[in-house]
């Protein structure tokens, strides 16, 4: 078959497909962290509210979205498997217990709101509320730990930079969650959340500084890349987004704050990608070129992604516009 021969002979249109897939992979991860991130943030902020009606509003806000948001993690796993099979295999089996910790935390987060809504007695809701908070805090923490271990090629389960990155990601999801909830609530609740936004942003920036210093001191191999214009530029961009977030929060510009939160997430993930490249798995020394799937599979995958991801974008636009605006009275999870 000629078409198969063409697809096997070289990358489609001569494009740098391995690098594009490396970029796409982190784009998918950042999209997941931004979208499901606000769900995690809502889970963390859930702990700060005692009032049953306010808690109900928090759950109603994420109700239609969280499942779709979580699928970005499934797509990340699938894309990593399809584009860089040895990395998927080595990375996931090396961080065996951590992977299952992430899955367990996600399971708790997904299940808890469903269970919380089942019964309205106080004890039941207190415990499922706690489970929801625990799952929403543990998932981003373990994801941060995993990302740091990946980047630093660590085989240990818990490392100091890992813990710092984990806490950074938790703070970031709270920043994200506040921005989302300010879009979805009204009145006093919306006004109260302003202060949570400032606090979360301050914590995030402090943790970013601590992480950068920690990584700079503990990982000498990354120092040169950390001083590169790209990484410095991304750190600068983080400060710009942080300023935009703070100003938008103060001026009650809800959409702008939400976009700034997205910018913070994408900048952080971009720093990780920039520090990793050209390696995809420092622990095994696999580079993008060495780990990429053979040409025919790569071309087919690229065609599939080029056709399907724009469609996915449309689905999300439909979903988010159907449920735009604050939660109405009577809407529940």
């Amino acid at each position, binding site marked *: 078959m000629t078409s198969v021969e063409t697809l096997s002979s070289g990358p489609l249109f001569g494009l740098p497909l391995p690098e594009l897939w490396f970029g796409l992979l982190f784009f998918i991860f950042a999209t997941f962290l931004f979208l499901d991130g606000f769900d995690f943030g809502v889970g963390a902020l859930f702990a700060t509210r005692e009032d049953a009606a306010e808690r109900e509003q928090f759950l109603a806000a994420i109700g*239609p979205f969280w*499942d779709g948001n979580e*699928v970005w993690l499934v797509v990340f796993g*699938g894309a990593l*498997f399809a584009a860089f099979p040895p990395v998927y295999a080595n990375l996931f089996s090396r961080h065996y217990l951590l992977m299952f910790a992430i899955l367990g935390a996600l399971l708790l987060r997904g*299940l808890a709101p469903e269970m919380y809504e089942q019964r309205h007695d106080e004890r039941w809701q207190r415990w499922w509320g706690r489970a929801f908070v625990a799952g929403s805090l543990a998932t981003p923490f373990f994801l941060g730990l995993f990302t740091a271990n990946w980047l630093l090629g660590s085989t240990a389960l818990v490392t100091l930079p890992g813990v710092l990155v984990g806490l950074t990601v938790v703070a970031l999801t709270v920043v994200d969650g506040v921005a989302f909830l300010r879009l979805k609530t009204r009145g006093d609740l919306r006004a109260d959340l302003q202060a949570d936004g400032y606090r979360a942003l301050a914590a995030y920036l402090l943790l970013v500084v601590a992480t950068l210093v920690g990584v700079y001191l503990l990982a000498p191999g990354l120092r040169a890349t950390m001083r590169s214009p790209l990484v410095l530029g991304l750190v600068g961009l983080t400060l710009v987004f942080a300023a935009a977030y703070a100003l938008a929060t103060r001026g009650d510009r809800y959409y702008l704050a939400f976009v700034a939160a997205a910018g913070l997430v994408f900048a952080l993930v971009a720093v990780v990608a920039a520090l990793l490249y050209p390696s995809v798995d420092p622990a095994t020394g696999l580079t993008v070129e060495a780990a990429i799937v053979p040409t*025919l*599979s790569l071309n*087919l*995958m690229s065609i599939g992604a080029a056709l399907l991801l724009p469609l996915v974008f449309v689905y999300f636009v439909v979903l988010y516009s159907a449920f735009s605006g604050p939660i109405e009275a009577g809407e529940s999870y």
Partner: protein
Amino acid sequence: MVDPVIASRLQFALTTVVHIIFPVVSMGLAPFLLYFTWKDIRTSEPVYEQLRRFWTRIFAVSFVVGTVTGIVLEFEFGTNFAAFATTAGPLFGGPLAVEGMMAFMLEATFLGVFVFGRERVGDALYMIAAVAVGLGTWLSAVWILVANSWMQMPRGYELVTRNGEQVIHLVDPIAAYATPRFFWMFVHMQNASVESVSLAMAGLSAYFVFRHHVWERPVDHVTFWETTLKIAVVGLLITAPLQVFHGDLYARHVYETQPQKFAAMEAVWETDSYVPEYLIAFPTSLESLLDPRAKEIFGIGIPGGASWLASGGDPQATIQGLEEFEGPQPPVAVVFWSFRIMVALGFWFVTLAFWSGYRWFRGELFADDLLHKALMASAPLGVLAVELGWVVTEVGRQPWIIQGVMKTSEGVSPGLTGAEATATLVGFAAAYLGLLTLYGYVITRLIRAGPPDRADLVTTATTEPAEGEVPADD
């Protein structure tokens, strides 16, 4: 300490056996939900709004549990079967990635609209959301079965050494992804899902119909349960005979492509002709119970039945025995019994379908208490048959993870320790026991609560039938 290979295999078995329940529910409910949504939008019969809303709640809960248990499987190829993932990744990873982008995204996004959005979106978009969710569940099965069928019938690849490891390279995508096995698996699995949901719906509604008509106890929403029963019987009448029909053709295909599995399904050790189809078979002595190759067996069989099944109608046909295959064999008793019970259940479902259809034709569907009891007892058996079918498929192909190419024991992650694998296996056993308990609890509560009361409906029927009266069938 348990061997990491054994622990990984047990863990994968446990996580798939639990996970598959939820896709069966969502894929099987999808055509029913499309019908309910369509009728709800097009007619002013309140019962269709009740049907849509009640079964959508069941669907949503099953979907959530399906999501959280499904992600586990996608990660387990990397965590527990890293050697397999490295070797087969260039061919096997693609379908999983496409499943995420094409199917899972479609169902998970439109599920939000479908479950929460009836009042927020117009009829047209709501119907589109219903179609998108249903289509998403079935497309998911397409890509998962594309991947699985290739493991059963590997084609379109070559083995290449890369970075010092044997790696499978895709050379012919059509041969690899569109195997005849995929066709049989897809037809058999999708039909089985609809059949299983029909059985569960029939059993559940039979309970309320029985309670009302036979026991004469008070039952809310009698019309709702009567309509559910009728729709479930229609589903059963369509799917049950089909399942037996293509099951037979599928078995022949298995004989042609995986003779070792077929021999295990029939427990044939020595190549022979005129092989009987044993309905039951037991070793004649206690010692041979422990002997996997016991030949002194007592059994009741249909003469030439297995030969007939393998050849498509020739009772004299020769069947290759297990002894012709080198190396380890699949655990024959497990495969043999799973296959038998699955087939017996399939025939039982056909009996139930015709029995219910006949009673309905005679106008006695709500009066036959024996039928109601039979339907109630059979409510979970469809899902059981699906589980047994997958046991035949997956245990029957052992020792191979990729038929004839890679053994399951060679696919396990090389760095995995017995302690890690045991820890997560125990963790999963506990977590999934809890998960199944909670799922059962939630479903029971939803059933107890029943459909929404007519006073709470959006539909305002002009010709609302009185409660207890059966709406016209259409």
